[in-house]
């Protein structure tokens, strides 16, 4: 590849890296925390019971690096650069001497998708493999490769592979190859890949066509067809400068509109609360007033944890829901609220919330963050066998294994647990007697907690805040 052709992918890659690392790092953390990549044979095999499993496995592998946002940003940027390179090569073969700027369309489409926190890297893997396949077919014009490769590609990456049924004939037309032959071979090969999947897999047929692995929610992910559009547009508009300009302006607008900075901010609050960086939460709130309920929950927790509850009304409050809202079945707010319960010493309730948050993850993944917290709560509550299971699983991860191996040394050692700066304290803070937890009477739960251990200042401060907010409602 000559330097001129490498220029655009390189620029895109650097820009993407800086964006995801410096502007959007909490979206990366969000993606990482709702999965748990295990280095075990069972985990590997679990992906290969449906089409797209290979892309899903690779996607999960790359996503784990988002534990360190700089590494995650490097991964995301690499996919964008690779997309630009492959797309550029395909477009260059079809319409030689076209503007290099059109290369950015497919990469722009991928970038827009990546800005959505529920888009998974398996979609990026699938798109890159699709582009590589299209390029291979363009270069070789081999019927055998189309026939065998299309079906194999579908098995490996899932529904995105079916876009080749449109892309291959269109690119064949521009490359001077036989269009109908290409279309028929691609369609037949897709059918060969689809039919066994529809007969054997426990998924509705439409989901098998649209893909099951690209989006966190079990919906028909039609957004992936923007990739197809992004690959077709350069062929159709390359002759018209004004259309090129319009499309590029649209891309620029999308680059500004697609990143969701409100969600990024909320995710930052959650991350800081999870890490116990409460002073930073307060600084964040001072810069810009919290705008969502989760942000408010984190802020009030931070005020309680830093004994700044006298500053409660320095920020606009919305009643007791700012301390603890009614239980809601979702995987995002439940996990953040688990921090409120955890930090205030309500270990059993925290365990319930973390467990339920994990069960709510829409793509049925397990979460390393949840496993870690579940292991901690199990250690504190003395259920060491269960804690051991969670720790054994975490020991097969890249970034949590060190912590898991260290935590395993505490199992069954009551003295060591009591001496732990967090777990010992959490044990002391537990309720004296058993009763039924009622999150709708959170004030009462806090009251009984403080009664059990008056030294629990976080619970005490939350109780003061709760009562004050309740009185003002």
């Amino acid at each position, binding site marked *: 590849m000559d330097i001129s052709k490498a220029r655009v992918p390189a620029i895109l890659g650097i820009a993407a890296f800086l964006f995801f690392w410096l502007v959007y790092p909490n979206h990366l953390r969000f993606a990482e925390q709702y999965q748990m990549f295990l280095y*075990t044979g*069972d985990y590997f095999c679990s992906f290969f019971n449906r089409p797209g499993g290979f892309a899903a496995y690779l996607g999960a592998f790359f996503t784990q690096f988002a534990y360190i946002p700089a590494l995650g940003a490097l991964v995301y940027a690499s996919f964008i650069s690779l997309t630009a390179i492959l797309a550029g090569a395909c477009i260059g073969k079809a319409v030689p001497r076209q503007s290099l700027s059109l290369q950015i369309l497919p990469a722009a489409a991928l970038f827009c998708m990546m800005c959505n926190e529920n888009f998974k890297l398996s979609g990026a893997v699938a798109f890159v493999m699709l582009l590589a396949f299209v390029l291979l077919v363009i270069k070789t014009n081999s019927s055998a490769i189309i026939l065998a490769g299309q079906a194999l590609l579908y098995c490996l990456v899932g529904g995105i592979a079916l876009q080749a049924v449109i892309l291959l004939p269109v690119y064949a037309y521009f490359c001077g190859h036989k269009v109908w032959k290409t279309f028929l071979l691609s369609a037949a090969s897709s059918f060969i890949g689809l039919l066994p999947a529809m007969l054997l897999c*426990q*998924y*509705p047929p439409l989901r098998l066509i649209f893909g*099951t692995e690209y989006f966190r929610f*079990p919906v028909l992910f039609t957004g992936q067809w923007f990739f197809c559009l992004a690959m077709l547009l350069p062929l159709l508009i390359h002759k018209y400068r004004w259309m090129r300009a319009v499309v590029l302006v649209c891309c620029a607008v999308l680059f500004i509109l697609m990143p969701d900075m409100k969600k990024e901010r909320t995710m930052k609050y959650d991350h800081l609360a999870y890490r116990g960086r409460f002073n930073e939460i307060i600084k964040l709130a001072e810069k810009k007033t919290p705008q969502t309920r989760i942000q408010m929950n984190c802020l009030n927790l931070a005020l309680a944890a830093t004994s700044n509850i006298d500053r409660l009304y320095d920020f606009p409050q919305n009643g007791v829901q700012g301390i603890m809202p009614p239980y809601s*079945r979702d995987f995002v707010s439940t996990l953040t609220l688990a921090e409120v319960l955890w930090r205030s010493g*309500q270990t*059993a*309730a925290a*365990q*319930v919330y973390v*467990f*339920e948050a*994990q*069960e*709510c*993850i829409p793509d*049925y993944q*397990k979460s390393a963050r949840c496993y870690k917290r579940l292991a901690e709560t199990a250690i504190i*509550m003395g*259920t060491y*066998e*269960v804690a*051991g*299971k969670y720790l*054994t*699983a975490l020991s097969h991860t890249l970034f949590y294994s060190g912590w898991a191996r260290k935590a395993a040394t505490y199992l069954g050692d009551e003295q060591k647990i009591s001496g732990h700066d967090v777990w010992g304290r959490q044990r002391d803070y*537990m*309720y004296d*007697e*058993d*009763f*039924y*937890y009622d999150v709708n009477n959170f004030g009462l739960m806090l009251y009984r907690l403080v009664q059990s251990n008056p030294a629990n200042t976080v619970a005490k401060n939350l109780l003061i805040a709760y009562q004050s907010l309740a009185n003002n409602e």
Partner: protein
Amino acid sequence: MIMKRAFFILLFAIAICCAPKDETYVDSFPEIYPDYISVTVPCNIAPLNFDVKSEGRPYVSLSYRAYSLNASVCGSTAMFPEKKWHKFLMMAAGDSIKVSVSAGNVRYKDFFIYVSETEIDPYLSYRKIAPGFEIHSKMGLYCRDLTSYREKVVFENTAITGSCINCHSFNAGDPSQVTLHVRGTKGGTLIRDGKHSGFFNSNNGHTRGGCTYEAWHPSGKYIAYSTNIPLQMYHVKLDNRIEIYDKDSDISIFDCATEELFTSPTIADSASFETYPSFSRDGKTLFFARALLRPMPDEYDSARYNLCCTSFEDGKIGNEIRTLVDAEADSLSICTPRPSADGRYVMFAVSSWGTFPIWHRDCQLGLYDMKNDSWRILDEVCSPETDSWHSWSNNGSGWFCFASRRDDGLHTRVYFSMINPDGSATKPFMLPQRRPDRYYTRLFYSYNIPELSSSEFTLDIDELTQDKKEMGQR
């Protein structure tokens, strides 16, 4: 010359390696997982592979009279070849197999596995679901061939978005006759009577709640359903993780021919809770759990269910209630009564109170003997953790399975035991797996509602997506 020297050196090295090592004999059983020491197994069970929890590579062999079978070893797992295992078991049926274990330089005391002459139903169907609170993630219904390690997916909830499947029940172990519930927005009750399949809305407005626990009449003409209004609470200390109680419950009978529900005050008394129906094998008796109505949740720990029965003849529910076990008098509560295939026993779960004992750590299995009109706790089967949800083998052999949390206190595993002719029970053994330690350590699902059957359970997804019909009310 050099070659000759090398050959003799090699021979010497081989001789050194193969020379018998000095083994220390220890007069104690090896620590193995699962615990298969002195268990009784049916003669058609899959190989009982196990892990040896000792230092050093294990050596395991079975012997019966002049025959022996060596296990291959993978890590710490002793694995028996399936075909040879089955031949071995058939040879030893009615007798016992000696198991010799050594690991490193330690030779352990031999133990025995007793092989029953009777077979167990060859298939087991169960749900695998996380031991959660309200929400379920991925879950499914699976059918396992008990003579091998083959497990097939019957249904996974990826097939119908947002669904959950539960309470599958076969007619006398025949999975061609099945009823189960699908929860979720597209939920309903499936009833397949062997010929036809219908998908019903079970909450027809006349019953207190939707159909929950069910039991087939052996004729296949009727199904008894309990209709419950369950509610849930959580403990702050999590010794018992969850408390589930019924705000109200009754029993109704579904007539498969007319597709109508009917009931009577005997099993739907406004002054009491009736739940967990089951029919006797001759179909003439309807067993159920019954407790006096109490204000819930205030008196949740005072709700105690007795084992009761009434007659059921020609589709007519009897007028009298017989109390077979007055558990309330002993401050106990009975749930899930299920009669044995030979009609002699009724097994049930028993705990200190309540109607959902699977979350009570004190839950144990009890056995009522119809011949002697007496009952006891199956102490030889139970553990300090929850033991519940049993299913009899339908071939009259006395084998049964149940779900137990004894492994780690949270995740239920399936165990098997047999009621001997003298009424005692054998030491239970865990559902065999190819690599049991690795499998069960990595498994974060609980086995739920294990049901034995005589043939493989299959389900067509179309059965669960067909148009829903309304259950009529007689």
